[in-house]
């Protein structure tokens, strides 16, 4: 987990890896922008049902949204803990984040299953195709985040000193990614569920 060429002089005084992460997040805006735009263009063009209003379950999704928001809260607490060198709290909060992330994924699996039972699959209509693709890729991002955090959790036992370096830079990067996935969900929740779902 050593920052690359960290001992070198940098022009801005900023860490390479953190710059890379922010550039990546800027770029990922275009990725989700494309998927969300596709969803918006197609949401009302399905020829056969079900349409969003038939099938989207706002109360259930509100709960999973709450879970994801809270996972972001825990993530930021774990980052705070590692910054202070508090490895015990770090482990607690990061494990909390992982569990909440898994809960969110559980909700998503439940939702996908439920929709399939009600006759909505990616092959049913345009709404199905775009909905599953958009939320599926968000879910893939969450999954990657969970794997990443789990690696950090494991690493906190293996080599805690490295993890604390640079005010917990490695944790900071994972946290930025995690929060980004959270804000993408904020947009999806509003656009797909709240505006499109009624």
């Amino acid at each position: 987990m050593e920052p690359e060429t960290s001992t070198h002089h940098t022009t801005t005084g900023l860490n390479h890896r953190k710059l890379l992460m922010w550039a990546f997040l800027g770029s990922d805006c275009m990725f989700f922008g494309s998927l969300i735009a596709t969803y918006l263009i197609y949401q009302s063009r399905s020829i056969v049902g079900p349409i969003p209003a038939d099938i989207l379950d706002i109360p259930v999704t509100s709960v999973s949204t709450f879970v994801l928001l809270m996972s972001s809260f825990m993530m930021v607490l774990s980052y705070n803990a590692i910054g202070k060198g508090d490895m015990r709290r770090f482990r607690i909060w990061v494990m909390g984040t992982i569990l909440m992330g898994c809960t969110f994924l559980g909700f998503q699996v439940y939702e996908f299953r439920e929709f399939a039972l009600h006759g909505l699959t990616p092959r049913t209509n345009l709404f199905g195709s775009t909905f599953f693709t958009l939320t599926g890729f968000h879910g893939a991002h969450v999954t990657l985040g969970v794997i990443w955090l789990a690696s950090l959790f494991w690493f906190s036992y293996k080599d805690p000193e490295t993890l604390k370096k640079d005010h917990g830079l490695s944790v900071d990067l994972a946290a930025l990614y995690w929060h980004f996935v959270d804000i993408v969900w904020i947009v999806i929740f509003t656009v797909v569920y709240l505006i499109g779902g009624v």
Partner: protein
Amino acid sequence: MVSISSVFERPTTYKGIAGWLVTVDHKRIGILYGVTAFIFFMVGGLEALVMRWQLARPEMTAVTPEVYNQMFTMHGTTMIFLAIMPLGAAFFNFIIPLQIGARDVAFPRLNAFSYWTFLAGGIFLNSSWFLGGAPNAGWFGYAPQTTKLFNLGYGIDFWIMGLQILGIASLAAAFNFIVTIVNLRAPGMSLMKMPVFTWMTLLTSILLVLAFPVITVALILLLMDRSYGTLFFTTSAGGDPILWQHLFWVFGHPEVYILILPAMGIVSEVLPTFSKKPLFGYPVVILSGIIIAFLGWAVWSHHMFTVGLGPIANAAFTITTMAIAIPTGVKIFNWIGTMWKGSLVLNSAMLFSIGFILMFIIGGLSGVMHSSASSDAQQQDTYFIVAHIHYVLFGGSIFAIFSGIYYWFPKMTGKLLSETIGKIHFALTFAGFNLAFFPMHFLGLDGMPRRVYSYESAMGWDLWNFVSTLGAFMIGVSILVFLHNVAKSMRKPNDAGNDPWNGRTLEWSISSPPPVYNFAHIPQVKTLDDWWNTKYSGKKPLRKVAGGSEQPSGEAVHIELPGLSYFPLFASLGLLIAAYGMMFSLVLVVLGMLLTMASVYAWSLEPAEEHSPSDPLSLEAKEIASLPLDARTDRIAELLKSSQGRKK
């Protein structure tokens, strides 16, 4: 730290093929990029020659329509993704760290990963010829032509997965160069003291990281349609082919600037050097580059003027497209301003740059002709457009790339290319190019459609097609002349010296070829064109020829270099295996992804800069760092000489 070295000894070799496989040195990676991309450039060129042969006379039967379709699809895809972009990347890799006074890029192993992934994508895409047929729906892959309903074979799947792999390579490289340029500039090199080529690389990289995610999504949608039965482009289910076009061109137009901005950067380096004058209006050239890069996001629909967007949209995109001509024109005027009152050294590099400007003026003007949506209604999808893109991408990008090769070849190899052969090469290229592509304007205005494998004599297109084919083969000959020049130069001893052109930027301040650690001492930059100003600041640099940076600095420097690594290569290999698996076997997908993930894990656990004690480079660097400043230069020259001896 418990390193994985217990399992896997970290590579230490710099010699032979193994040395190239594990290298993380930006200069070696640059050369790998350049050589590989040039090979793909010739493959794409051969495809072009097959097409020109087929079109030399009316109703030829050299290839079947299906093969012809595969030829033009692969020609476009190869030239854009496997030739021009990576040739640009070759220069980014070799030159940027030298121009900004850095030891390497910010993420050397990621850089190696970019190259190997690019190579994997190129091999994957081209292997389609032998595995059931190449893609056949054009480099733009318009749905629904590319959906399973109309295109059953593997070709399109090769195209989709190939572009995805190349996208990963390009994104990784672009992130790397953004961070490198932002964060690894020599002390004192503020943004407005950066060489123009570095600026254009930064803009290109920014465009890349913003444009590629869009094509990634478009390709994912298409892949899901083809493989999993989703309905994005199934028109009978309400899917809209226009969505593909928008996603494709939101990516595709910035992509055009990704191809041309590095070329503009190269020309902006070559012209001042050989005019012996600073670039005219440096801030304006930078600003117009920025404007071109960002206006690029507001013009993509001019590729879609005939799809029926409606008059209001067409009018709006006509105006934004015409607006692009303004910053482009400003650049051309500034280049001419640079040469004005100069003392022009008309060598091969300069001739290619001048040729670039002239060809780019023609390409730009024909671009203005169809920036008008109404005029474009008569030109869209005819040979007029083929002429235009080749004036921009061959007359533009390729001319500039050749200029860059003649300019930087001595820095890369320590050897000068022959000027006599270089001028013959230029004359042949220039004549062949205009012979091949200027008649296409006439063909287009006479109504010849693009992408047709044959035509009838009654259409009156015989003469210009024949002329065009002659020109195309002339270009082919010119490439052979160039190869001869390179081969001949490589056989002679180093004769370039450190600064053969009386250069302006930092790369000319060090020896040719540069030592692995580039700068024995990181330079302090005070002005734009710092090296030039140092040379002419009154106090003549003491040892201009001997090499090594001269700017003294009190700071004690410990030369640290990135350690070699197997894992970038393995991570790319995993992607390649997984991509084949997408087509032939799920097992391969799983194996490939496991290999990639394991490599990424091992990579992130492997310290960036750890060297095994026996690493000769590490010893060398430590030795240099321990020497007093004055002695370093001589020692580097000595080491370089002996390393050359070792090679033979």
